[in-house]
C-alpha cells in the first residue's frame, strides 16, 4: 500500500472489520470486498498528507459504502434498469461488526470450494488487507494472475451459496483446519523465500504471524491455533541466523544462536507450554514442541534429542507423513548413532512420498558423513542437489558435496 508503516498497520488491522460491516449491510461478499479494497487504497493515498481521520474505521466504512453504491448503480445501469429513489438510498446500516467477524471472514476465504492458491490470495487481500499487486510481488507471479485467482474465488464462493455467518460447531472444526493450513502455507512461503533477490517482497511470515495471532485472540482455548502460533514464533525466531550474508542456507547445527530472537522464543515456549498442559494435543502443538526443544538448546551439542525423538514418534502416530518419518529417522541417528539411522532409512526409502525425494538423499548424505563415509556422503549430496526444487538448497547441497571431494 506504500503508506507510512503506522498507517499501513492501521489499515491492515481495520480491513477485515470494514469488510465485515459492509457484508452485513449489503450482503454479496465479492462486491463488498472490491469496495473495501478501493477504500483502503484511497486511505493509503490521502491519510499520509491529510492526516488520519479521528474515526478511521468510520471513514473507511463510509468510503467503502459509497464505492459499493457506485458499483451497485453501475450494475443497475448495465441491466438497463431505471434508478429509483429507493435504489439510490443506501440500505439501512446494519449492526456493527461482531467480535468473531474476522473468524467468519477467514472461514469464508478458506472455503473448501477454492483451490489452495485462491484461498491464500483471498485471505491475504480480504483479511490481511494486502493489495493484489503486493500479493503478486510476494509470490513472484503477475498481478493479472492474482487478480484472476481472487475474482474466480469470489465467483466460486457465490456459486457455492456460502453465507457470511459462522458454520455449525461440527463443521467449524473441519473448516478451521483449512484456515490453519492456509496460514501455515503463507508463513512457509515467506520463511523459505528469505534469501535471494527477495527484498521487495511483502513480509509474508510476519503477515501470517499477525493473522494467526488475531485468530488466537478469537479462539484462545483452541490448542491447535495456539500450537500453530507457537510453531511460527519458534521457527521465525531462527530467521536471522538461518542464512549467511550472501543468502546461503546455514544448517541448524552451524547457526549462530546468539542471533536467534530471544523474545520470540520466550513467547513461543511460554505459549506451547501452557497449551500442552491444557488442550488436547495436536500436530501443530507437537511441531511447536519440537521447535521449542531446538530453540532452548544453548549449543547444538546440548539438543535434547531423546525428547525430540519421543515427540516425532508421537507426531508420527497422530499425523503420519513422509517428512515426519524422515525427521524421526534423523532423531534416531542423533540418539542411537548414524548406523541405526541409516538402517531405518533403508527400510523407509521405498515408501510413497519418500522414494526419489531430495530430502531422503540429503538425510542419507548427512548420516553417511556422520558415519565417516565421505565418498558415499558426497554422492548422496550430489543426488540431493540434483533433485531439489530450491535454488538455495541446491547451493547448500553442492557446497556440502564439494567439501567432501577426495583428498589429494
Amino acid at each position, binding site marked *: 500500500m506504500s503508506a507510512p508503516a503506522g498507517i499501513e498497520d492501521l489499515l491492515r488491522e481495520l480491513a477485515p472489520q470494514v469488510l465485515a460491516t459492509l457484508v452485513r449491510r449489503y450482503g454479496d461478499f465479492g462486491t463488498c470486498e472490491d469496495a473495501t479494497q478501493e477504500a483502503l487504497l484511497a486511505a493509503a493515498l490521502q491519510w499520509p498528507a491529510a492526516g488520519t481521520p479521528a474515526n478511521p474505521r468510520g471513514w473507511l466504512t463510509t468510503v467503502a459504502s459509497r464505492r459499493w453504491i457506485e458499483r451497485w448503480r453501475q450494475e443497475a445501469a448495465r441491466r438497463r434498469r431505471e434508478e429509483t429513489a429507493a435504489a439510490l438510498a443506501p440500505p439501512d446500516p446494519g449492526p456493527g461488526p461482531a467480535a468473531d467477524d474476522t473468524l467468519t471472514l477467514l472461514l469464508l476465504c478458506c472455503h473448501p470450494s477454492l483451490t489452495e*492458491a485462491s484461498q491464500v490470495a483471498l485471505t491475504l487481500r480480504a483479511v490481511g488487507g494486502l493489495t493484489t499487486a503486493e500479493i503478486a510481488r510476494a509470490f513472484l507471479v503477475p498481478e*493479472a*494472475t492474482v487478480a*484472476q485467482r481472487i475474482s*474466480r474465488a469470489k465467483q466460486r464462493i457465490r456459486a457455492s451459496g456460502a453465507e457470511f455467518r459462522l458454520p455449525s460447531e461440527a463443521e467449524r472444526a473441519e473448516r478451521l483446519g483449512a484456515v490453519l493450513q492456509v496460514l501455515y502455507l503463507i508463513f512457509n512461503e515467506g520463511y523459505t523465500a528469505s534469501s535471494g533477490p527477495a527484498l521487495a517482497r511483502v513480509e509474508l511470515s510476519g503477515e501470517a504471524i499477525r493473522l494467526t495471532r488475531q485468530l488466537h485472540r478469537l479462539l484462545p482455548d483452541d490448542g491447535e491455533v495456539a500450537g500453530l502460533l507457537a510453531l511460527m514464533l519458534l521457527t521465525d525466531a531462527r530467521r536471522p541466523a*538461518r542464512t549467511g550474508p550472501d543468502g546461503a542456507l546455514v*544448517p541448524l547445527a552451524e547457526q549462530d544462536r546468539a542471533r536467534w530472537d530471544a523474545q520470540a522464543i520466550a513467547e513461543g515456549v511460554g505459549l506451547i507450554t501452557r497449551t500442552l498442559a491444557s488442550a488436547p494435543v495436536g500436530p501443530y502443538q507437537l511441531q511447536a514442541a519440537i521447535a521449542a526443544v531446538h530453540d532452548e538448546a544453548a549449543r547444538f551439542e546440548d539438543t535434547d534429542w531423546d525428547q525430540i525423538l519421543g515427540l516425532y514418534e508421537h507426531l508420527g502416530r497422530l499425523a503420519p507423513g513422509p517428512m515426519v518419518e524422515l525427521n524421526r529417522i534423523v532423531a534416531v541417528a542423533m540418539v542411537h548413532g548414524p548406523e541405526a539411522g541409516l538402517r531405518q532409512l533403508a527400510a523407509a526409502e521405498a515408501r510413497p512420498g519418500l522414494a526419489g525425494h531430495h530430502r531422503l538423499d540429503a538425510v542419507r548424505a548427512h548420516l553417511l558423513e556422520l558415519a565417516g563415509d565421505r565418498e558415499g556422503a558426497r554422492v548422496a549430496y550430489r543426488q540431493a542437489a540434483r533433485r531439489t*526444487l530450491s535454488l538455495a538448497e541446491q547451493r547448500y547441497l553442492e557446497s556440502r558435496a564439494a567439501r567432501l571431494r577426495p583428498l589429494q
Partner: protein
Amino acid sequence: MKYLVLIYSNPASREIWESFSDEQQAEGFRYYNALAEELAANGELIVTEALADASLTKRVSVRDGQTVTSDGPFAEAKELLAGFFLLDCDTPERAVEIAARLPEAELGLVEVRPILQLGGQEM
C-alpha cells in the same frame, strides 16, 4: 509451484499439422486459445507463447568479444521446441493434468519441468 510445460514438434507432428485444412488449423488455434483463457481465468497461467518457425532461429555465439549469429534450422529430423506454458499450480499432478490436454501429448511431445524456487528449507 511453478512449472514450465514444453511443447515440441517432430517430423510426424509437423506432417499432421501441414495436412490439416485451413478450417482444421483454425480449430487447433481455437482449442489452444480456449485452454489458455481457461487457465488464465483459474489464475494458473503466467504466460504462454507459440514460437515462430524453427527456420527463423538464430544461434548466438561470442568469439573473441565478437557476436556471431548463424541461421537455423538445425537438423530437420530432430524434435524442435514449438511453444510453452508457464504455469503456477497447487500440485505437480495438476501440471501434468494440464499438459495431458495438449494435443501434442498424444504424440509424446510434451514435457513438464518444475521451476527452481529461490528460498529453501533449513537443513
